[in-house]
């Protein structure tokens, strides 16, 4: 079975090496400071008893007041999995360091997060939109992006565009 390195454990290891690098640690994952992200990632990748060499998933989450980038990282040699995150409170132009130099596998995943959530990954070799075309207005996975046309909200009484007052979606 894959051993889950909890956010508390990984935070402890990183904190020992880079004091002050951890913002918050919960069992689901450790939140890092953006400035020390690359150092911490390189450290957990190269440390002989961690060897987190395989970036399984990288994704952005719009937490309403902030953006969060979530990294699920695996160690294939030692069969471990852990989760790191980085938060940014700048909603206008959220910026997070790119981990492409640590795990090249982040390349397409960061482009996807940039395309759909508008998170800028600083230091990414080729940060362009990937699914949507250049010039597409807005970033659709943001929570404040307009709802999809065609009445896709669950529990709507009628389709948007039909006469009537302001639509009330599900609670």
């Amino acid at each position: 079975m894959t051993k889950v390195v909890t956010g508390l454990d990984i935070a402890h290891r990183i904190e020992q090496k880079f004091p002050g690098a951890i913002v918050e640690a919960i069992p689901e994952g450790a939140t890092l400071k953006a400035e020390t992200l690359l150092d911490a990632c390189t450290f957990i990748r190269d440390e002989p008893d961690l060897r987190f060499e395989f970036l399984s998933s990288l994704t952005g989450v719009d937490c309403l007041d902030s953006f969060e980038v979530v990294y699920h990282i695996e160690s294939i040699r030692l069969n471990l999995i852990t989760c790191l995150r980085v938060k940014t409170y700048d909603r206008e132009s959220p910026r997070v360091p790119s981990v492409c130099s640590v795990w090249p596998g982040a390349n397409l995943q960061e482009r996807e997060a940039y395309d759909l959530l508008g998170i800028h990954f600083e230091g990414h070799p080729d940060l362009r939109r990937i699914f949507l075309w250049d010039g597409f207005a807005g970033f659709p996975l943001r929570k404040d992006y307009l709802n999809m046309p065609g009445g896709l909200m669950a529990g709507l009484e009628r389709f948007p565009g039909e006469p009537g007052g302001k639509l009330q979606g599900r609670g």
Partner: protein
Amino acid sequence: MALKTEPFVVNIGPQHPSTHGVFRLRLTLDGEQIIDADMVMGYLHRSMEKLAEERTYTQNIPFTDRTDYIAAMTGNLAYVMAVEKLCNVDVPERALWLRTMMAELQRFASHCIAIGIFANDCGAWQTPVMHMFRDREKILDLFEMACGARLTLNYMRIGGVSRDIPEEFIPAVRKLLKDLPSRVDEYEQLMLGNEIIVARSRGIGVLTPEQAMAHSVSGPMLRASGVAWDIRKADPYAAYDKVDFDIAVGTNGDVYDRFVVRIAELRQSLKIIEQCVEMMPEGPVHARLTPATVQPIGQPVAPLALRPPVGEAYARIESPRGELGFYLVSDGSPAPFRFHIRSPSYINLTPMKLMSVGATVADAIVILGSVDIVVGEVDR
């Protein structure tokens, strides 16, 4: 006298048989040699992640059919596992075995397509594909028997599967298990012994184990590079911890080895299906979801919609294409707050440039074929 040359750009796709869907490969060439490769995708982007944020957890199961439409069972399975992790649901034993059997049948059907279409890419137009489709059809018939659909199956449910298999299912599987091993031998001779396929694929698109791991490549591609990493073994889900099988591993990491691994996996899948048929226990196929299992006691519940407790879950499985993961964030409402698919087809394309620079145009077609992408899953 030096000849004056300039780079030439070739678009392969979006409508091209070798791109396996609407996908565009933009190659910059110096003569016949590739000097840059860029991927243009999104032609099939349906914004599933946004759609899923506005639907209930149960309503999202059909979306997972339509991401990887060649292997809908494994898409279903990964998603329901993520929701079950979120709600702490215990799935009955029989449902776990059914899931294992269905996932392996699906892997067989999916690898049939991968291998057949690869022969297409190598120039054996349509005949090998039809050989593979013959066997895939029989598996689709089994799926139709089990859940009424052939392609977009919608079979898994949160807490189990939608219904038990009918009486005639197991005899039909047994009959298939008699026929298929000889077919696999036939494929092996047809594909791996073929001089043209060997010439086209040996030493092409090589990834070293370090490169493969660093680029987050998973599934048969990673195993072809010599890394024995299979989530079915490393982190067993469903009933994989109770069945016996081997991990197929390649040595060279080239296109040829990827198909050696896939054909070896066909045999392992048959082995697992056989064990499932023998060891399938009786019992219920669906867990009873009570409000207490999905909601902390003391909070108001809406009985009809599943409302997982606030939290997050990441579940991953070994799909035919690689590591398929679902990352779900719940805010306690009936719809997921964030629904992310870690799709193996998409991420396995990351080293496409690395593999194809220096090769020729004909090689690029074969390399893309060996990644075995499903564009529905690349674009989502």
